[in-house]
């Protein structure tokens, strides 16, 4: 294909791909899923159900399944998009993510970034030192503002927000001696809450900028 035509097609494809997130609804759906997971873990902690191995395993499997299902399947969001998005800025079929051979370098960068975040996260959940707060703050800053693959891997933002949740959890630990499993619950809850705020702000901005076409 001609270079100019190819560029135009790629540009159109990129715009169509990012169009799915234009209204913030996918972020809200994911955030609600994570928030529910966090609240469920908090409930398990405080109700005393946590500690019996069967219930731990069952709840973990359920939560992971629900979260993955909500993130992967756009069915729940499609109904909202039909009400909010399509009358304003139109409909375009969702494009599946393609793994291109030339994109492997970027994928490795993303993998390294994820490993770094998870590593700090795991350390912060297990090590008792105030310096972890500093490390968590640095990683959060990196994830939110210096994410090198933000356009292609927006979910890394969510990991960044998870670090904020972790930071909150560690701070809570310093003051209230919260044990590790509760930190996990606080982390998920903070992640869900922040994601929800981000999604709602995006949605409000979108609705404000795009009135319904007559």
């Amino acid at each position, binding site marked *: *294909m001609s270079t100019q*035509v190819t560029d135009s097609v790629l540009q*159109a*494809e990129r715009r169509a791909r990012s169009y799915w997130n234009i209204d913030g609804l996918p972020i809200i759906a994911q955030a609600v899923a994570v928030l529910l997971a966090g609240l469920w873990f908090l409930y398990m902690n405080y109700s005393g159900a946590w500690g019996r191995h069967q219930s731990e395993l069952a709840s973990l499997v359920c939560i992971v399944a629900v979260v993955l299902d909500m993130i992967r399947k756009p069915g729940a969001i499609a109904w909202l998009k039909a009400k909010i998005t399509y009358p304003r800025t*139109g*409909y375009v*079929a969702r494009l599946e993510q393609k793994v291109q051979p030339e994109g492997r370098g970027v994928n490795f960068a993303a993998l390294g970034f994820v490993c770094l975040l998870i590593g700090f996260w795991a350390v912060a959940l297990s090590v008792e030192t105030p310096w972890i707060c500093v490390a968590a703050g640095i990683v959060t800053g990196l994830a939110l503002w210096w994410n090198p693959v933000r356009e292609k891997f927006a979910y890394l933002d969510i990991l960044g927000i998870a670090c904020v949740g972790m930071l909150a959890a560690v701070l809570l630990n310093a003051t209230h001696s919260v044990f590790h499993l509760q930190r996990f619950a606080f982390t998920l809850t903070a992640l869900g809450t922040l994601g929800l705020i981000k999604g709602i702000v995006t949605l409000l901005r979108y609705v404000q900028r795009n009135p319904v076409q007559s």
Partner: protein
Amino acid sequence: MTPALQELATLDRLIHEPARLMIMTVLYAVPEADFIYLQRECGLTQGNLSSHLAKLEEAGYVMITKTFKGKYPLTICSLLKKGRDAFEEYARKMRVVNNSFGVQEVRSEK
């Protein structure tokens, strides 16, 4: 006549028109899109887009279907195989022309 000029002469005039080229480009990149999305992406008025889409549909390049997403009515457009092939052929010819013009520019600079 040079091969590049011959390619120019055989360009698909239906696609070569700027507005229709924009529509074809967007539809080539996505499985399907509705009227409002195309209107926003191409920056065309409602009447303009309708007339261009009608021409592309008439040529068998584009399929237009009316459907519903929930209660919201949608006019969905998608590229047919004939249209996809025609667009690829158009792009191939443009590449030949572009390459040829590039060579001539280098020669004139020398």
